[in-house]
C-alpha cells in the first residue's frame, strides 16, 4: 500500500476517539455509586463526542493526499528485533468503521438510557458499553496487527461483561463464558498469524507486513490467511465457531444490537478486508473464506426459520447476514466493497430490528416468545413501523438498503463466471429466500394475527428516548443502501484501500439478478404467509415435527457437536489427568517415601537385639571386606 503520511492537525488528535469512551468507562467504574445519577449521561456524551470527532476527522481525511494518515503514539513493546509501536491508522476503511461504531453506538447509548432506566446497575452498564466502544475503535483504528489484537480481545472482554451483565442468571453467566472461550479459540489463530508475520517479516505493522507481502512464500501466505480466518470466524460467529452468538442474546437487548449485530461481530469482515493484500496473494485461503461464508449463510438462515425466540431469530439472521459479507470479501477485489456496503447497511437495519425487538420485549414484560406475541401492530405503532422498515430492508425489498447491497454481493459472486460462481450465487439467492421466510414469519407472529399475550401483560409503546433512535436507524435502513451504492459510491471512498474498482463483465445482467432475487424473496414471503399467517399460531411449539424442523430448532446440532467433540472429551481428559497427577505422579513420590519406610522397618528386623547376630554380621562383614580386598589386589 502507498506511503502513509504522518498525521497532523485534527487527525493527530484522533486518538481521542478511543480515549474519550475509555475515560468515560474509567470514571464510571472507579467513581462508584457517586456517579449513579449522571453516569449514563456521561457515557452517552463521550460516545457522541467520539462520533462528532469521527465525522470531523473523516471530513478532514477526505482532502488528505492519499486519504490515509498514520498517528504514531508511543513505544509499546521494543526488545530484540521486535518493535511494536502503539499507533493509529486513519484511512477510509477505518474511518467508515469509526463512523459506524460511534454513530450506531451513540444511538444505542441513547436508547439504553430508556431501556435500562429501571436497572439498579445502569451505571455499570454504560461503563461496559463505553469500554466496548473504546476497544472496538482501537480494533479498527490500530495501525498494526498487535494493536488490532489488543482491541480484538478488548471487545471480547466487553462482550463477556455485557452478556453476563445480569450475572445472577446462570444462563447469562454461562453464555458469557461460552462467548469468551470460543472467541479465544479464534484469537489463537489471530495470534499465530501474528507470530508467523513476525517470524517471516520481523514486523507486525500493517505498513510493514503489506509492504513486503510479495516476499512471502505461497504456503506461508495461505497459512497466514487461514489463521486470520480462524480469528475472524471466532469473532464473527462464523462456521464452525457460530454457536456462541445466539446464546449471547442473554445480554441486554441494546448489547445484542450494538455488539452482536452492528459492530463487534463484523470485526471478522473488517479483519479480512483489512488483510486484503494478503488474501489477494492466496486464492486458497480466499476460497476457504468463500466456503465458510456460504455454509454459515445457510446454517444461519435455516436455524432462523425454526426458533420462536425473537432475539434468537434475529441472532441467526445476523449469523447468516455476516455469512453474506464473508462470501463477499472472499470474492476478492470484486466483493470487498459490496461486503462492506452490506456490513454498513446491515449495521443500520439489524441494529434497528434489535432495538425494535427490545421495545417489544419492553412492552411484553421481557418475554421473548413470539408465540406469546401477536397483534402488536396497533399497540406499538412506532415500533411496528420502524421494525417493519428494518424487516423490508433485511429481506431485500426493492430500493431499500438490503436490496442494493445484497444484490451487489450476488452479482459479484456470479461474476466469477465459474462453477463456484454459480454455486455461491445460488446459495446466496436461496439464502435470500430463506431470509424472507423467517423474517416474514417473525413479523407475522409478532405484529399480526390474534393477540396471544400472557395474562396480565399490557403492551404499551416505549418512551421517545427509545423510539427516536429506532426512527433514526429505520431511516438508515431506507436510505443507506441507495446512498452507499448509487449516490456516494463507497467504492470511490475506499479506492485508496482496495484500489480501482474494476468494471466487472457482468455474466448476468444486474436487472435480471435483481428480478430473480426479488422473485425468490417474494416466494419466501408467500411461503411464510402460507405456513404461519394463514392459520392459528399454537401457543406452545408443536412437538411432532419433521426431522428438518427439529434439526433447525437445534441450530443444526452445533452445540451437540461441540459438546460431544470438545466439552465431554475435555472434561473426561481433565478428570483422567487429575487422577494421573494424584495417583501417578504424586503417587510415585509418596510411593517412594512409603517404600523407603517399608524397607526401613524390614531392614530394622535385622537389628534383632541378639549379640550373636551382631557378631555374625561383624564376622561376615570382616570376611567380606578381607575377601574383597584380596580379590582386588590379587585379581
Amino acid at each position, binding site marked *: 500500500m502507498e506511503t502513509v503520511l504522518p498525521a497532523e492537525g485534527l487527525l493527530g488528535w484522533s486518538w481521542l476517539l478511543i480515549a474519550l469512551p475509555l475515560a468515560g468507562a474509567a470514571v464510571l467504574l472507579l467513581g462508584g455509586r457517586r456517579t449513579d445519577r449522571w453516569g449514563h449521561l456521561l457515557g452517552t456524551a463521550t460516545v457522541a463526542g467520539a462520533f462528532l470527532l469521527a465525522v470531523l476527522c473523516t471530513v478532514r481525511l477526505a482532502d488528505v493526499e492519499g486519504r490515509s494518515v498514520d498517528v504514531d503514539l508511543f513505544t509499546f513493546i521494543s526488545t530484540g528485533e*521486535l518493535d511494536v509501536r502503539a499507533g493509529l491508522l486513519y484511512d477510509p476503511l477505518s474511518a467508515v468503521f469509526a463512523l459506524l461504531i460511534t454513530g450506531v453506538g451513540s444511538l444505542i447509548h441513547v436508547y439504553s438510557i430508556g431501556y435500562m432506566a429501571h436497572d439498579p446497575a445502569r451505571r455499570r452498564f454504560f461503563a461496559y458499553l463505553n469500554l466496548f466502544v473504546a476497544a472496538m475503535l482501537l480494533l479498527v483504528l490500530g495501525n498494526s496487527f498487535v494493536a488490532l489484537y489488543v482491541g*480484538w*480481545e478488548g471487545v471480547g472482554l466487553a462482550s463477556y461483561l455485557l452478556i453476563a451483565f445480569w450475572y445472577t442468571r446462570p444462563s447469562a453467566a454461562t453464555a458469557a463464558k461460552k462467548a*469468551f472461550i470460543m472467541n*479465544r479459540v479464534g484469537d*489463537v489463530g489471530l*495470534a499465530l498469524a501474528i507470530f508467523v508475520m*513476525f*517470524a517471516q517479516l520481523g514486523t507486525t505493522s500493517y505498513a510493514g507486513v503489506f509492504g513486503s507481502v510479495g516476499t512471502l512464500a505461497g504456503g506461508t501466505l495461505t497459512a497466514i490467511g487461514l489463521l486470520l480466518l480462524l480469528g475472524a470466524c471466532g469473532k464473527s460467529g462464523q462456521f464452525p465457531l457460530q454457536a456462541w452468538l445466539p446464546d449471547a442474546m442473554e445480554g441486554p437487548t441494546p448489547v445484542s444490537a450494538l455488539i452482536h449485530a452492528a459492530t463487534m461481530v463484523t470485526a471478522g469482515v473488517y479483519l479480512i478486508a483489512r488483510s486484503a493484500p494478503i488474501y489477494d496473494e492466496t486464492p486458497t485461503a480466499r476460497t476457504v473464506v468463500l466456503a465458510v461464508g456460504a455454509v454459515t449463510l445457510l446454517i444461519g438462515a435455516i436455524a432462523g426459520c425454526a426458533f420462536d425466540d425473537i432475539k434468537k431469530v434475529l441472532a441467526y439472521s445476523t449469523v447468516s447476514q455476516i455469512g453474506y459479507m464473508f462470501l463477499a470479501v472472499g470474492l476478492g477485489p470484486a466483493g470487498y466493497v459490496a461486503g462492506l456496503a452490506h456490513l454498513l447497511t446491515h449495521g443500520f437495519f439489524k441494529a434497528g430490528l434489535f432495538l425494535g425487538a427490545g421495545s417489544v420485549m419492553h412492552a411484553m414484560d421481557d418475554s421473548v416468545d413470539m408465540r406469546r406475541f401477536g397483534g402488536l401492530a396497533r399497540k406499538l405503532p412506532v415500533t411496528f413501523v420502524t421494525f417493519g422498515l428494518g424487516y423490508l430492508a433485511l429481506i431485500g425489498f426493492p430500493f431499500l438498503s438490503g436490496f442494493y447491497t445484497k444484490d451487489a454481493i450476488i452479482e459479484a459472486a456470479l461474476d466469477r463466471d465459474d462453477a463456484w460462481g454459480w454455486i455461491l450465487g445460488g446459495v446466496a439467492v436461496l439464502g435470500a429466500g430463506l431470509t424472507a421466510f423467517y423474517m416474514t414469519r417473525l413479523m407475522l407472529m409478532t405484529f399480526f394475527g390474534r393477540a396471544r399475550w400472557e395474562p396480565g401483560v399490557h403492551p404499551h409503546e416505549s418512551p421517545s428516548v427509545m423510539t427516536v433512535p429506532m426512527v433514526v436507524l429505520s431511516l438508515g435502513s431506507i436510505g443507506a443502501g441507495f446512498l452507499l451504492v448509487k449516490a456516494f459510491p463507497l467504492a470511490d471512498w475506499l479506492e485508496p484501500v482496495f484500489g480501482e474498482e474494476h468494471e466487472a463483465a457482468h455474466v448476468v445482467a444486474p436487472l435480471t439478478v435483481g428480478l430473480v432475487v426479488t422473485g425468490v424473496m417474494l416466494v419466501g414471503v408467500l411461503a411464510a404467509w402460507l405456513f404461519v399467517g394463514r392459520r392459528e399460531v399454537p401457543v406452545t411449539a408443536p412437538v411432532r415435527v419433521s426431522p428438518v424442523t427439529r434439526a433447525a430448532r437445534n441450530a443444526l446440532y452445533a452445540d451437540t457437536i461441540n459438546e460431544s467433540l470438545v466439552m465431554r472429551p475435555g472434561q473426561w481428559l481433565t478428570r483422567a489427568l487429575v487422577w494421573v497427577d494424584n495417583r501417578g505422579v504424586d503417587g510415585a513420590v509418596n510411593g517412594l517415601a512409603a517404600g523407603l519406610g517399608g524397607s526401613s522397618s524390614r531392614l530394622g528386623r535385622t537389628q534383632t537385639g541378639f549379640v550373636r547376630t551382631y557378631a555374625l554380621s561383624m564376622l561376615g562383614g570382616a570376611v567380606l571386606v578381607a575377601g574383597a580386598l584380596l580379590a582386588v589386589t590379587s585379581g
Partner: protein
Amino acid sequence: MSDFPFLVAMIAVPAVGAAAVAALPKGRELLAKQLALGVSLVVLVLAVLAAVAFDTGGDRFQLTTSVAWIPDFGVDFALGVDGIALVMLLLVGLLVPLVIGASWEDGAPGADTVREAGTEARSMRFFFAWLLLLEAFMVGVFAATDVFLFYVFFEAMLVPMYFLIGSFGGPRRQYAAVKFFLYSLVGGLIMLAAVIGLYVVSTSELGEGTFAFDALRELDIDPGVQKLLFLGFFVAFAIKAPLVPLHTWLPDSAAEAPIGGAVLLVGILDKVGTFGFLRYCLPLFPDASRYFAPMVLVLAVVGVLYAALLAMGQSDMKRLVAYTSISHFGFIALGIFAFTTEAATGAVLYMVNHGIATGLLFLVVGMLIARGGSRQIGDYGGVAAQAPKLAAVFLVAGLASLALPGTNSFVSEFLVLIGSFPERPVYAIVATAGIVLAALYILLMYQRTMHGPARGVVAPLAGDGPAGPAGTADEPGGASATAVLTAPARTAVRFVDLSRREIAVVAPLVVLILVLGVQPQPLLDIIEPAVTATLSDLGATR
C-alpha cells in the same frame, strides 16, 4: 549514590528486623506488625533507590560488594545485580509489605477460632519474623554473584518458608511443609554436588578454585562434564520452578500455606528456579544447555497444557491457582530455553508479571476464604452481588493471569510466544493453545464463585435491606490463612465488601497490572541488556 551498599542493606535490614520482631515480648502483636511493616517498607524504598542507581547502559553487574568469606573454599560474600536480578528484587520489595498488610488480621481472635481443634493460636510475632527472614534470604539469593553464596541462600530460604507453612498453614500443613522441604532439599543437595563439581573444575582450570560467577563464566568445560553439572543444577531449579513432573509439591504447599506464604512461595521463591536457569544453567553450561534444550522445552510445553487441564479439575481454589502457576512456569521455561532475546526478555518480564498477577489472585482468594471459611469453589456462588469490589479485583487478577491484552501478563506471554516462534515454532504453537485453557480455568472459577445466585456459604440477600447481623458478624479477617476450615459446611454469611485495609493491599497490584500492561518498556529496558549478555554467554543465534 551508587556507592551505598544497597544490597547489603537490603539483606541486613530485614534480617535484623526479623530478630527484633521475634525478640518482642509476648502480647506485643500490634507492635510486631507495625515493626515488620516498617522494615519491609524500608526494604521497598531501598529496592527502588537501587533501581534508580542502576544504570541500564552500564556494566552487567552493578551495586557490587565483595568481601572474602571462607578463603579456604575460595568463597566470597559477593553481591551484585544485573537487570534480571534487579527486577526480581523490586518484586520482592513490593510483595512483602503487601503480604504483611494482607496478613494483618491473622491471629486476630476472629481468625483463630476457626483453626482446627488441637492447635492453639500461634503468636503472629513469629509469623512476621519468619516473613522478614525469608525476605532477607530472597534478596540474597537474587543478589548473590558467588555460586556458593547463592547456594547458601537457596537452601536457607527453605527454613523460614518451612516454618511459615508448618506453623501457620492449613489442616494438612505438616504433610505439606515436609513435602516442600524434602522436595527442595533433594534438588538442592544434588545441586550441591554440582556446585562442588564446578568448583573442582575451576580448580583444575584456574589453578585455584573459585565460586565467582564471572570467573566461572569464562571456563570452557568439557561437554561431558557440562552435561552432568547442568543436570545437577537443572534438577534443583526444575523442582523449584517447578516443571512437570516435579511439580506435585507446589499444589500441596501453596494450598496449605497461609496466604501470605503462598504469595511469596509462588510469587518469588519459585522464580528462583527460572532465575537459576537464566543466571546459572545457560551461561555456565552453554553446550549442555543447547544439548538439553529440546528436553526442557518438551517439559515446559507439556507443563503448560497439563497443568492448565489439571487446574480445571481442581475443586480447591488455592490448588487451582497453584496449578495455573505451574502452567505459567511452563511458559517461562519455554521463553528461557528458546534462546532468543525476545523470548528470554519476555520470560523475565513474565517472572515479574506472574508475581504481580498471581500474587493478587492469591490475595483475593485469601480474602474470599477469610469470609467464607472454605477453600472449595463449590461452597461459593453469587459473591459479586454482595461484594462487587472483591469481585472486580478478582476479575482483574483473573484476566491478568489469563494474559488479556491491556494487563501486564499479556506483554510477557506475547513476548515469550512470539520470541520462541521463529526458533521453535512447534513448541510455540502448542503453548499458544494454552491461552484457551487459561481462559477456561479462570472463567470457570470466576463464574462458579462470583456469578449465579447466592450459594453455599454465601447467604442470599435478605431483600434490599441493609446488611443484617450475619454480615457484621463476619468482619473480614483479612487474607486469613488460619480461616481455612476442615469442616465442609459452615453457616452461610452475608459477604461484606473489601475493607479499607484490603483495598490498600490490592490497589498497588491492580494499578501495576494495568500500567505495566500499557507501558512495559521501562522494565524491558532494564531487563534486555542482562538477557542479551546471558545469551551471548550462551552463544545463542539471536
